[in-house]
């Protein structure tokens, strides 16, 4: 009886492990199979970014989204953090809309006022 119990516990653990492994596996597959990349480029006295899918430009952001006027990002790091956020949303199959709270979270200084 004890041996059988051990067998069940083993199966439960193995199932859990395999489940995790496959989830993890599929996640990394998603990542590697959707070749989304960001590029940072200079605009005026700041920086913009673009999101590429293979040879195609999906999004080209010369100015900070949401804000009125044409204000580029002040640093390459700001542009890069924002571009990476957009890519992570696309990989999760979410809409690429950025919101004020997300840009605050990314610590884009232009959103400190909001």
């Amino acid at each position, binding site marked *: 009886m004890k041996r059988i119990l051990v067998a069940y516990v083993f199966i439960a653990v193995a199932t859990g492990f395999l489940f995790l492994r496959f989830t993890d596996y599929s996640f990394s597959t998603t990542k590697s199979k959707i070749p989304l990349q960001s590029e940072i480029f200079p605009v005026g006295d700041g920086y913009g970014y673009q999101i590429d899918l293979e040879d195609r430009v999906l999004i080209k952001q010369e100015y900070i989204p949401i804000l*009125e006027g044409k204000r580029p990002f002040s640093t390459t790091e700001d542009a890069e953090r924002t571009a990476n956020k957009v890519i992570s949303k696309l990989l999760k199959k979410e809409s690429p809309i950025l919101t004020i709270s997300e840009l605050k979270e990314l610590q884009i200084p232009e959103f400190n006022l909001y």
Partner: protein
Amino acid sequence: MKYIYNMKGRVNHIKMLTMASVTLCLMASCSNDDEDEDLGNWIDQSVFDGSPRSGSAYFTIGNIGYSGVGYDGDDYLTSFWSYDMDGDYWSQKADFPGTARNAAVGFTINDKGYIGSGYDGLDELADFYSYDPTTNTWTTIATFPSTPRRSAVAFGINGYGYFGTGFDGDNDRKDFWKYDPSTDSWHELVGFGGDKRRAAITFTIGDYVYMGTGVSNGIYLDDFWAFDSATESWTQKLDLDEEDDYSIVRSNAVGFTLNDYGYIATGTYGGTLQSIWEYDPSTDTWESKTDFERTSRQDAVVFSNNAKAFIGLGRTGSLYLDDLEQFFPYDEYDDED
């Protein structure tokens, strides 16, 4: 007796173990299959872009299409995007400054875009805003002075904006109004002989704006009108069910112009539609074109500048779509692309 019981028990356990192993194998293979399908679908559909939303307002200025506000199934939105028809990419622009809404109208007057009216989930709206693409800024303009409404039509021509029909929360409307940007004022325009309606379409060919389709009290309208922008007068054209093989009547469609022909595409008539009809203004006749290739939809957006046209961002039932497709009316149908 005990021995037999144990035997039974063991057999059962062996069965259970086998089932567990089979389940594990199935899980493994299933998860692999799913992964492949999802990926394929996503890349196919996602000639992606913009954002999945419906009832967005849109307008085109030069080679750039603009689309904003809308409803994503959970929230009414204020985000606003531009689509570069030549470069085939999107940018997120300055947020729409009014309340988040859908079923708003969009139109262009002299290289500025306008979005106004609509529905915020509780009320019909009457506020309007203009967008200047050279500065990426919004300006509040005069509020529409009559009944707030949604699902109206609007177009810009000859330096003026025109706005009419729609649903005010209780009734469908048939009044038309004119917006003059030089004085920032609205005036009612008399002379539209058609019935009240909501969710109609317009398209512009030369100096004429054509208006038709839409629905009122569950009845789809079949009348079709031409607005002469020089005299601001309406003329009735042949009905949209004039010929037996026409199936043009519908609501929540999109209207656009390409190479001086007019088009009515997608929308709903009972269910959502994929069909596209082409209007020849010289003969007042319609011809069916190749159906929209993607999933059928209503409340889509269209960007067109008479040289190019792109349709996308509508909904089918509760599934929100986010792809955009260029329409080539004269190309042979190719299901490979």
